[in-house]
Every structure is written in structure tokens, then in C-alpha cells.
């Protein structure tokens, strides 16, 4: 990675002078095709588009962005028309009966599948019944557990009878990155085995059709439907998508992505290490990033954290978890991991989308007063000035231009974090029997305290760097801390079993909608009903094996709320959850998952940015579908 800047500079100097004129697609003018990175790289089975049947290598080939449609979308940012909740295939939000045992869905009229067949209630019913009969299919088990019966009222109205009251049933059909898409009945009803069926060529309600693909799985080319007005986007918004062609292309090497975009041969890069994105921003006059300057990146509604298994001593002790938190200098972590471009969070909600308004603004006064008691002493750990400290450090260390207004800085890098207070951390540890000898911490039984931070390796270099920064600070504090960088699947496998001794995981288990305040989406699996002991793989998102009666009550109460009407109540319950978590510190929240999505404005304009946050620009999200009606050609050839 240290070669990256050097490589890029050589290319910039020479290629900038010579120019670049490679034809991307024979016979297709470059200004009619938008080229987007598929972060999966290579699709091993490129003809498989059956997302319901599973085994699809990449969901970021355009299949969920351009082709298949869902009933509803929640945008992680502001939403295409200023409202994050979007009815796409559905005409309206779902309607539940009073006891939440029935859900009625009204569908949009006038939508046609890409092969000319009308989209109707039969498609939705067929999708649900097929999935219900096949628990091995992607959303099959959920349908089997939750749906008692699905029936047609008319061609555009469907009623679900649920097995038990469930006011969140619709979320399975609501895209946050993805969701259960609707099957074309007229295709799948002729298929003997819906799991084995490849679904090639794919038929969708979206505005594009697959034109060609690489049998080796490196690219997928989509063409705008001639009848785009009858597609889901066409019917819902009436606007023609700008690009005539969309090419999703797998690229694994970050250097190559930078070089391709400098040569205007790659319009949207999914993610880059910070220095790659910053280099592009500094050298490509057409570069478009979420923030037009520091901190550049888009904060995804995902919260990378330090996750401790509460069944492994000493992480069952709240004092230890808090001591570790206070032994972290967050400014240094942000500088060393994200080159100062992270969006920090002291609480167990990512500071992204509309969450700052719903949660951060409301909880901050409480945070300022929050007090930790150590024997007879008290300590207020929250520091609201940390964003300014980060801005100052960034200005000094990297020379980036940063705003002077603290309010602006908070919008960019978050609200605040916990004070770097090794002295208080020391008192907390001593209060539970830890000892410090010759500058090194010993466990209450006299053995040296060792920590290995298990983190992702090269695939997410910012996470490796962040883990290294935390380990360095804990070593400085007197803990024998190291990092162990492994491949992504190893990290998640080991975390989900939780059997590693002396290990803290750098990963995430908190993800929010961004565009809706309901936390039930990720929080449900923290309920003790779903608790699994160490050695058994966790259910969904509770790898810390946290059990709390208070949290159980909050989840039970959230379950009773109306997703569409009880906004204030959901926020109040969310605030209760945050307070409980701050007191218990079940995991140490660090920052949101900032994605350096870099767009090239040479051929296309209208990308989402912090100034116009109509959707998430990160192209593997299904929500990026709405970007295509905003993207328009610049006129350059």
C-alpha cells in the first residue's frame, strides 16, 4: 500500500500528458455507459441470478441495483425526494391490523416485467409461497416461521396472515442494502426446482436488462429498457435514467482502480484506502466524493466496534470494559486508521443518516452529565470537544483544509467520544482486583493480562490500522496487546463461536436503517431468547453474548410499537437502549464504517453527495437504484 502514492503519481504525470483513449465497449460511445466497480471482484458463477435460491457470488453486478425490485426501500440518507421511506413496487406503506397479525399490501399499477408481462399480486403471492415451501432458500425460513397464509384480494392487493403478531414483518421486503425481492411468477412457475434454477437471463421490474456478461465473471453490461416508463422506477418517478448502459466491473487491486479512474475509465469506485481516495481528489479535477474535501468518505450506518465476549474473563466485568474504553485515545485511532477521516461515535448507534438528529442531539446532554463511580470518586467521561481535536490534528498532521465552525466539524466527524483517561482506567481496574507491576497489568490471579485484537487483514486495511492503533495504546497503558489480522471469513467465524482466549474482536454487530429510527432491525437478536453460549454460533448480531433484562424489555417494547406511527416512542426506547449500553459498555463503539466511494464527474453528473444526500453512493447497496434517475451525461465525448 505504501507504493500506492508513488505509483499513482508516476501515472498521473505521464498519462496526464499523453491522454487516454481506450475503447471500453466496441460500438458503444463512452458517454452512454457508466462504469461502476463491483466490489466482489469476480463472480464465480456469472449466469446465476437467482437471489432467492442462493449461491449467487455477487449481489453487486446490477442484479439488485438495476433489475430486481422490492416493495419498499429505506434510504440510509435523505431519500430521492427528501423522504427516506420509498414505496417502489408497493403503492403505499404496509397496513397492519390492530394486533399486528395481518398486513395488507397495495401494489403499484402499471409496472411490467422486463419481458412485457404485467407485475401483479400473483407475483408477490407466488414469491411468498415458494419461499415458504423452501426454507433453504434465502428468505424461505423466515416466511415459514412467520406467514400463516397469503391471499389475493384483487390484482393489486395482498393480505398476509401472520403466525404471530409482528409489526416488523414488512422489513423483510424493505431494502436496506438488500431485501426479499419479488419473483416473476410467469418464469418461476415453469421451473421444477426453484433452488437449482439459474434465473438466466434475469427478468426484473427494474429499468435495465442484462445485455451481456463475462463468462469469467468480471463484468456485467446492462442496457436501459426501451419501455423504461413501465419499469418500477419509471412508474414510481416518471423520470428516465440517464445512462443508456451500465457496466459493473470487478476490480481487486486498489492501484488499478485509481489508475482507471484517473483515465476516466471507471466512473464509480466502491471503496479505497483513504490515501487512494485523497490522491484522486487532489489530482482528478472531476473527482466527486461525499464531502468535497476532508473527510471525503460516506459514513455507512454500520458501527465498527471492539467486541468482547462477556463469557470470557475479565470481559464479563463492566469496570474492565470501561477501563479499556478510557485507555483509548480516539484522536490517535482516527488519525492512524482513517487518516483523520472517521466519523466517531461514543454511543451504540452509528452517527450517520438521520441518527444524529434522532439520537445524538437528544442524548448529548445526558452524556455530558453521565458519571462513572469508582469507590467514592466520580468521573464524567464524555468529551464533546473531540471532533475539534481531530480537526486540529488533521490540519497539523496532513495539512487538510478543515472548517473553523465546530458545528460543521461535528457534522463531518461526529459528536464526541470518551476522554483519554488512563488514570481513571487504572482506578477502575484496581477496583476489581487488577494489579500493575513494573508498568504491566496483571490479572487478579497474578497472571499477565494479554489481549489479541482479531481484525480483518488486507481486505479492509483501515480496520487493521485501527486495531493496531488501539493495541499500541493499550500497550502504552501496560497491557500486553497485539493484533492478529486474518481474512474476513475467519474473523467472523471465530467471533461467532467466541472461543478465543484473551481475544477482542474488531468487527461490527450494530447496523441501523439510517433513514428510520427503529433499532429493532439489528437489536432483536440481542434479546436473551436468542442467546447462545460460547462454542455455539451466535444468532445474528450478539457475538458479545450480552444478556440484559433492561435490553430485553426495550426490545419487547419496540416490538409493540407501530413502525409508521410511533416514531417518538421508538426514539425514546432507542435512547433508553443507548443509556443502558453506555452504562454497561457491552462493546466499545468506535466509528461508523466510512466508505471512500469516489465518483468521476468527467462523463456523468448528479452523484449523491453530502450537499445533495438523496441516497447512499456506495454501489453495492440495492438503494443505489435511485441514483440512476439523477445521473445525467455531462456532454463530454
Amino acid at each position, binding site marked *: 500500500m505504501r507504493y500506492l502514492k508513488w505509483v499513482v503519481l*508516476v501515472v498521473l504525470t505521464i498519462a496526464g500528458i499523453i491522454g487516454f483513449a481506450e475503447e471500453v*465497449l466496441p460500438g458503444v460511445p463512452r458517454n452512454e455507459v457508466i462504469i461502476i466497480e463491483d466490489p466482489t471482484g469476480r463472480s464465480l458463477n456469472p449466469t446465476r441470478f437467482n437471489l432467492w435460491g442462493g449461491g449467487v457470488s455477487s449481489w453487486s453486478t446490477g442484479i439488485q441495483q438495476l433489475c430486481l425490485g422490492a416493495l419498499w426501500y429505506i434510504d440510509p440518507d435523505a431519500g430521492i425526494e427528501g423522504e427516506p421511506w420509498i414505496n417502489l413496487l408497493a403503492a403505499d406503506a404496509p397496513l397492519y391490523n390492530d394486533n399486528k397479525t395481518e398486513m395488507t399490501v397495495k401494489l403499484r399499477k402499471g409496472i411490467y416485467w422486463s419481458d412485457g408481462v404485467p407485475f401483479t399480486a400473483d407475483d408477490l403471492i407466488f414469491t411468498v409461497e415458494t419461499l415458504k415451501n423452501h426454507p433453504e432458500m434465502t428468505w424461505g425460513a423466515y416466511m415459514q416461521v412467520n406467514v400463516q397464509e397469503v391471499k389475493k384480494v384483487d390484482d393489486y392487493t395482498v393480505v398476509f396472515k401472520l403466525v404471530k403478531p409482528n409489526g416488523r414483518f414488512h422489513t423483510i421486503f424493505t431494502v436496506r*442494502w438488500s431485501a426479499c425481492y419479488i419473483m416473476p411468477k410467469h418464469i418461476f412457475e415453469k421451473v421444477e426446482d426453484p433452488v437449482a434454477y439459474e434465473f438466466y437471463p434475469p427478468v426484473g421490474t427494474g429499468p435495465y436488462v442484462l445485455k451481456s456478461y463475462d463468462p469469467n465473471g468480471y463484468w456485467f453490461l446492462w442496457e436501459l429498457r426501451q419501455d423504461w416508463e413501465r419499469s418500477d422506477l419509471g412508474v414510481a418517478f416518471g423520470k428516465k435514467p440517464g445512462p443508456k448502459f451500465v*457496466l459493473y466491473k470487478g*476490480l481487486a487491486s486498489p492501484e488499478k482502480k485509481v*489508475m482507471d479512474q484517473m483515465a476516466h475509465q471507471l466512473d464509480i469506485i466502491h471503496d479505497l484506502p483513504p490515501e487512494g481516495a485523497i490522491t484522486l481528489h487532489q489530482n482528478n479535477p472531476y473527482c466527486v466524493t461525499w464531502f468535497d474535501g476532508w473527510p471525503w468518505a460516506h459514513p455507512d450506518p454500520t458501527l465498527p466496534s471492539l467486541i468482547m465476549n462477556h463469557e470470557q474473563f475479565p470481559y464479563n466485568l463492566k469496570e474492565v470494559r470501561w477501563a479499556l474504553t478510557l485507555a483509548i485515545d480516539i484522536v490517535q485511532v482516527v488519525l492512524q486508521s482513517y487518516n483523520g477521516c472517521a466519523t466517531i461515535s461514543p454511543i451504540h448507534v452509528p452517527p450517520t443518516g438521520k441518527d444524529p438528529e434522532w439520537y445524538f442531539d437528544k442524548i448529548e446532554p445526558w452524556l455530558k452529565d453521565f458519571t462513572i463511580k469508582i469507590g467514592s470518586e466520580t468521573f464524567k467521561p464524555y468529551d464533546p470537544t473531540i471532533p475539534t481535536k481531530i480537526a486540529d490534528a488533521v490540519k497539523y498532521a496532513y495539512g487538510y483544509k478543515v472548517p473553523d465552525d465546530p458545528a460543521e466539524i461535528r457534522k463531518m466527524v461526529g459528536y464526541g467520544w470518551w476522554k483519554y483517561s488512563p488514570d481513571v482506567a487504572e482506578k477502575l481496574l484496581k477496583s476489581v482486583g487488577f494489579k500493575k507491576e513494573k508498568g504491566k497489568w496483571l490479572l487478579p490471579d497474578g497472571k499477565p493480562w494479554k489481549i489479541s485484537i482479531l481484525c480483518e487483514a488486507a481486505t479492509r486495511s483501515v480496520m487493521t490500522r485501527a486495531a493496531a492503533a488501539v493495541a499500541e495504546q493499550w500497550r502504552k497503558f501496560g497491557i500486553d496487546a497485539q493484533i492478529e489480522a486474518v481474512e474476513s471469513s475467519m474473523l467472523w467465524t*471465530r467471533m461467532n463461536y467466541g472461543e478465543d482466549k484473551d481475544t477482542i474482536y474488531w468487527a461490527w454487530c450494530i447496523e441501523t436503517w439510517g433513514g428510520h429510527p427503529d433499532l429493532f432491525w439489528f437489536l432483536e*437478536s440481542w434479546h436473551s431468547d436468542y442467546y447462545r453460549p460460547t462454542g455455539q*454460533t451466535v444468532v*445474528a448480531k450478539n457475538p458479545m453474548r450480552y444478556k440484559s433484562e433492561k435490553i430485553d424489555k426495550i426490545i419487547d417494547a419496540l416490538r409493540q410499537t407501530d413502525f409508521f406511527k410511533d416514531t417518538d416512542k421508538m426514539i425514546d426506547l432507542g435512547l433508553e437502549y443507548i443509556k443502558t449500553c453506555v452504562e454497561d459498555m457491552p462493546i466499545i463503539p468506535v466509528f461508523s464504517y466510512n466508505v471512500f466511494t469516489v465518483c468521476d464527474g468527467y462523463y456523468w453528473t448528479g452523484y449523491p453527495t453530502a450537499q445533495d444526500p438523496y441516497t447512499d453512493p456506495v454501489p453495492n447497496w440495492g438503494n443505489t437504484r435511485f441514483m440512476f434517475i439523477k445521473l445525467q451525461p455531462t456532454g463530454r465525448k
Partner: protein
Amino acid sequence: MKDFLRFIVRYFITRLLISLLVIFIGVSIIFLIPRLVPGANPAEMAIRRLQMSGAYLPADSIEKMKQALLKLYGLEGSLLKQYTTFWKELLKGNLGPSFASFPTPVMTLIARSLPWTVGLLALTALISWVFGTVLGGIAGYRNKGLWVRVLEIISNAVRPIPYYILALLLLILFAYVLHWFPTGGAYQIGLTPTLSWTFVKSVVKYGFLPALSLIIIGIGAWFLNMRNLVSNITSEYFVTFAHQMGLRDSIILRSYVIRLAMPAQLTGLALQLGFIFNGTIITEIVFNYPGLGTLIYTAIMQSDYNLVMGTTLFSIVAVAFATLFVDLLLPFIDPRIQYVSG
């Protein structure tokens, strides 16, 4: 004829049986290892992949889905039952479905990548070996001269460069600066693979830079190896004696020196050809080139037992038979090597 039969019975069959035993043990090990790795459960991995990528799988359905997937993947029975089923299917040429790309058969996935890997790596391995060996042999024998020094300097300069950097430099120079070659892929986007001249021309053009990067690295290694071997042999007494006998240089080089240096080079080549089934992941990443490297990497990362077994099976068989081939070939080249039965 009698000698030939004795060779077949006493040597060839014994060596063949040893090779088959090696394959059996190798395949059994790769069957067991993924199954014994804690947490490498394909059903859980499939669910985790969906969750990690952001798909919503509510808590109350996960256990049910896991059981359904295990049943679907045929992983419900005991290890012994799975093992016997595996051998039965393997002997029928069926490696089963890939779990991560279910239900795509493993053979289909391998068949898509294999031609690219074999085409690129076999060709570049042979070209590198021929040029490296010939040039190294001459350089080692005629240890003087400007061109020998130049070749040595180039080989020694190239060898320590990390392959990733070398490949990237070639890409920058020839693709991004000079625009002589494309920036990546196996052929022009939009072309359909056929046996047409347009497609073949595109494959050659797109394969040139990956091939060049492998040849540059390969030639240097073979050159230095051969040069060192030949230099050592030329200082042997029998070579000095041949010179004193007044034999021509060409005869000494061909019959006394090269012949004795060849076993090591041939063994190296055979093993390298055997290992090409492992693919070359860095080449594939830098040049967006399809091949077995990314397939194997993905298989391991996703605990795709069947795909791991399928890809490594090719490598085990190839290395075992390459070794057998070399064992049979060497006595014809080096008179000091004799067939002796096990």
C-alpha cells in the same frame, strides 16, 4: 523385451502404485481438513455471507435455515458416510456442487477457469524454462563476455522485485502510459468467446502482459539456476579431462555438461507444471485475469469443501504424475541414474 517387461513390472507398476497412494492420501487429507476446522460449517458460512453483505435474516429463522441448508448440501450424515459417498461420486467423476455457488457443480466452476490458467501458466512456464535453461547453460559454460554479465545483472535485478510490483509496473507502462495493451481482463469486453480470429487475437492481446510478467520472473530464476549448475559441472575433473582429450566444445557442452545439469532443471519444470493448477492469484488480481487462483482463494475463504477438494485434487494428481514422469525420464538423460524397483 525381457528387460522392458521387468522394467514395467518391477519399476513402473511400483512407482505408479506409489503415485496412486500419494493421490489417495492427499485427497483424504483435503477431505478431512476443512471438516475438522472449527467453525467451518458451510451452512453457517452461507448464512454469514448473507448477513455480512447486509442481507436481513431475522433471528427467528436462522436456525431453521441452517438445518435446511445442511440437508441441501448433503452434510447431515456422519463423517464416514460423507467420506464413502465422496469417493463413490469422485470415481464417477462427480465432485459435487459448490456450496458457496450452490448448486453450480464444482466441475463447471473449474472448467471455466482451468483453460485460462493452463493456457497462461503452461505456456509461460515452458517459455521461461526454455529460454532460462538455454541462456543459463551457455552463460555458465562461457563464463565471460559482456552479454553474460548483462544477463546476470538483469536476472539478479529482477529476481528480488516483488512480483506484484513488477506486474504493476508493466501494467502502468504498457497499458496506462503507452496504451499498447489493455488494462485488464482476458479479452475485449463485449466479445463472445468463439474460435473466431477476432476473439483469438483479443485473447493474445489481453494475455500478453500477464504472460510477460510471468516470463520475466520465470526466466531470471531458471537462468540463474542453470548457470550455477553448469558452472559447477564445468569445474568437475571429467570436464577438464574432456578438454584435455581435445573434444570439441559443443560436444563437451551438450554431452558432458548440459546432460548432467538437466535432471535438476527437468525436475523443477515438472513440478512447476504440476503446480500450475494452483493458479497465480496475484496475476489474476493485477490483470483481472480469470483463473484457478481466485477460485481456490474463494473456496478456502468460504469453507466451500467441495470446491477446495476439486481444485486441490487437480494439483495433487498433476504433481504426483509429474513426479512419476520425471522419475521415468531421468535415467534416459543422466547415465548416473538407474531404474531400481522399490
